[in-house]
């Protein structure tokens, strides 16, 4: 049972490196929307990483954390897009 755990940990590490690469767009995005899209993508990768680490260490409680994080990620995107327009016509 050690080979899937190792593979999942290595996959989670690669996902983290992809998230770091996505943060470059969040740093140098010209508009607010570019940064918001990049942060949303990083949050999705974070949900996946939490689920993979929970699967690697065989702890089902991590999935609740992943669900909550996905909810907060969606809430952040919608709230940010409503705040930026300041007219409130989004969604």
């Amino acid at each position, binding site marked *: 049972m050690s080979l899937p755990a190792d593979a999942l940990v290595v996959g989670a590490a690669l996902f983290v490196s992809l998230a770091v690469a996505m943060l470059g767009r969040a740093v140098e995005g010209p508009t607010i929307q570019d940064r918001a899209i990049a942060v949303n993508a990083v949050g999705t990768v974070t949900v996946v990483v939490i689920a993979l680490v929970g699967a690697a260490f065989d702890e089902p409680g991590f999935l609740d954390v992943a*669900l909550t994080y996905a909810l907060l990620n969606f809430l952040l995107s919608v709230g940010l897009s409503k705040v930026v327009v300041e007219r409130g016509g989004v969604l």
Partner: protein
Amino acid sequence: MATPGTLTAVALLVGGLAFTAVAALGLYRLPDCYSRAHATSKSETLGALLALSAAGVAFGEVTTTVKLGALAVFLLVTSPTAAHAIVRSADDQGIDPWRRPAGADDHEGDESGRGPTNVEDGTAGGVGGGDGSGRQPTGEGGES
């Protein structure tokens, strides 16, 4: 040893990594916030679904599979919705989408310094000026 469950989990994980790498590449290379949202909302969602399937195969229990299925459905619904909300806020702000420059007919003209969100010209018709850059066709060097 390589059980079928392990092989399935590793294959799904590699697929998810590949699609997420495509999303990261599109997020870094595409010239516009609209096209960046296009890259992340689809490819990123598919990569996340594949990776969550890998986690579900690696768990192999009923409750975790149900919970991961709920998480996958939630991501499948909310990730394009969030991208749509962000892009719609960009459109309400009046950010023009990227257009191909007038002189460029090849795929060399996609450097990220030129593309994004030229709010200040506002013409969006492509008729103004034309050869404002005035670059020679031999000067395909590294400056940008």
